[in-house]
C-alpha cells in the first residue's frame, strides 16, 4: 500500500460502558483518519477516552456505534493479521518470565527462530537501555525499567501499527528525550504508523505529524492539528517558533477541555 493511504478510519464512533451505576459515555461521535506513516499523538485530560480509542483500534474493545476500519478491514481482521504492537499504560509484564522471556513472548508466538529471537532481544534491550537486565524478573526492576521493558517487547517484532499508551510516563527527562529520538529514528526508517498517547505537550508536538486533542464526559475529539514540522527533527527544534505555536494551540485545546470542570 502506498504511504499516505488511510490506515485507521473512524466514522461517528461511539462507545458506552454499562456500569453498576449507569452508563459511561467513553467515546462520542469520534471521526478520525490516520494515514500510512502518520505519527498521531492523543492528548487530553485523564478519563477522556484515549486508552479506550486505542483499544478500539486494536480490537480490544467493541464500539457500540459508528464504523472503524484498519487497512480497510475491521480492527479484528487487522489484529488477526498481526498488524499491532501495543504498549499498555501499565507495564503488564508476566511475572513468571524474565525480562528477556517477556520480550521473547511475541517473537515465540510469531514464530521467529531462536537465534533471531536472541538477536532481537539483544537489540531492543539496548535500545531501551536495559542491557544486562535480561535475566532479571519484573519485580526486581524499578518502575521505569519495567515500563521500558514493555516498550522493548512491543518494538521487538515488526508490527505495522504501533499503539503506545503513555509509554514514557515513568521516565526521566533525559532518557525520555533519548527514547523520543530513537522512536523518531525507528519511525523514519520503517514507515510504521504510530498511535501515541501522552500527557506531555512538548513530547506530542516534537513527535507527531498529527495531534489529536480530546476532551472528557463524554469523550470526544475537540481538535486535530496537522504538524507543519519537517520529518527531520533535531532536539532543538523545540525552541523554534512553529513548535511553540503548535504547543500553544494544544495547550489551549486542553484548557478548553478542562473548562467545564473548573
Amino acid at each position: 500500500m502506498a504511504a499516505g493511504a488511510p490506515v485507521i478510519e473512524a466514522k461517528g464512533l461511539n462507545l458506552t460502558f454499562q456500569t453498576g451505576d449507569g452508563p459511561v459515555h467513553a467515546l462520542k461521535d469520534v471521526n478520525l483518519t490516520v494515514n500510512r506513516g502518520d505519527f498521531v499523538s492523543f492528548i487530553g485530560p485523564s478519563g477522556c477516552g484515549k486508552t479506550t480509542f486505542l483499544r478500539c483500534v486494536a480490537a480490544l474493545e467493541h464500539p457500540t456505534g459508528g464504523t472503524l476500519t484498519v487497512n480497510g478491514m475491521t480492527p479484528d481482521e487487522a489484529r488477526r493479521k498481526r498488524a499491532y504492537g501495543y504498549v499498555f499504560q501499565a507495564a503488564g509484564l508476566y511475572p513468571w518470565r524474565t525480562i528477556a522471556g517477556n520480550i521473547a513472548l511475541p517473537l515465540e508466538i510469531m514464530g521467529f527462530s531462536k537465534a533471531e529471537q536472541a538477536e532481537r532481544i539483544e537489540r531492543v534491550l539496548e535500545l531501551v537501555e536495559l542491557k544486562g537486565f535480561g535475566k532479571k524478573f519484573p519485580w526486581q526492576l524499578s518502575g521505569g525499567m519495567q515500563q521500558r521493558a514493555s516498550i522493548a517487547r512491543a518494538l521487538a517484532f515488526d508490527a505495522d501499527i504501533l499503539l503506545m499508551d503513555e509509554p514514557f510516563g515513568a521516565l526521566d527527562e533525559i532518557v525520555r528525550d533519548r527514547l523520543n529520538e530513537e522512536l523518531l529514528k525507528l519511525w523514519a526508517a520503517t514507515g510504521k504508523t504510530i498511535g501515541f498517547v501522552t500527557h506531555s505537550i512538548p513530547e506530542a508536538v516534537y513527535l507527531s505529524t498529527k495531534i489529536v486533542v480530546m476532551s472528557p464526559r463524554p469523550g470526544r475529539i475537540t481538535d486535530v492539528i496537522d504538524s507543519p514540522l519537517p520529518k527531520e527533527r533535531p532536539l532543538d527544534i523545540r525552541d523554534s517558533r512553529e513548535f511553540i505555536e503548535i504547543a500553544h494551540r494544544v495547550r489551549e485545546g486542553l484548557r478548553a477541555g478542562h473548562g467545564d470542570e473548573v
Partner: protein
Amino acid sequence: MREKVLPVLSVLGIIVVIWYAAAVWMNSTWVYDQAERAGTTVSFAEMVPQTMAQDRPLLPPPHQVVKELWKGVAGQAVTSKRSLVYHGFVTFRGTMMGFALGIVMGVALAVSIVRFRVMDMSVMPWAIISQTIPIVALAPMILTVSNQLGIDNREVPKAIISAYLSFFPVLVSMVKGLRSPDAMQLDLLRTYNASESETFWKLRLPASMPYFFASLKVAVAAALIGTIVGELPTGAIEGLGARMLIGSQFGEPLIMWAALFASAILAGMLIVLVGTVEQVARRRMGGPA
C-alpha cells in the same frame, strides 16, 4: 534446618502429651468397667498403667502404635505380606496411578471447560454431581463392571476409584487458575493475535500454577484415600486399606491404628514430594526464594 525441625518437634511433643492424657482418660472407662464387673475397685494410680497396655484400647497410647508400626516395618522382610512396607508400597503404587490419572483427567477437563463454552455449561455441573456420588457405593459396581469387561486385575479399578476422587480438586482449581489472568495480560496476547493454544501455553497455564499446586496437595491426599477405599471391596487383599479393614473386623485395633498411621506417613511423604516439586517450579518461575 534447625528452624524447620524445632517447631515440628515441639508441636509434636505437645500432641504426644495431649494424646497420652486422652488415652488415659478414654481408656479408663474400660478399666473401671472391668473392675466393676469383677467386683473390685481400682485407684487412679492403678488405673493409669492399665490404660497403657490394653488389647482393644479406645485410643492406644502413642508407644503402642509406634511399637506396632515398628513391628510392621522392621519386624520382617519388606517383601513379607506381614510387612507394612510391603502393603504401603501396594497402596503407594495404586495412589500414584490414580493420582496421575486424576491429574490428567482434571487438567484435561479444565482445559476443555475453559476453552469450550459448551463444556463449561454442560460438563461442569455434572463433574460436580459426580463428586456428590459416594464412591464407596460405586466401588463394588466399578469392580463388577470392570470384571465383566474382562479386566481381572485389581489395580485398574483401584486406580479408577482413586482418580475419581483426585481429579476434582485439580479440576476446580485449574478452572479458576486458567481464568485468573487479568484483562491486560489477555489483551496483550490478543494484540499479538496469539492463537487459543498459544494463550493457553504462554499465559493461562503459567498463571494457573499457584492454583494447580494448591490443588495437588489436596488431590494427592484424595488419591490416597481413594486407593484405600478401593482396597476394601476389591477383595481386601493387600494394601493398607485391607490391613485397616482386617484390623477393624478382627478386633485388632492396633493393626488398624498402625495401618492408619502408615497411610498418614505415606500421605505426608507424598505431600512433601508435591511441595518440593512446587518449590522447584516456583523458583523457576521467578518467585522470590
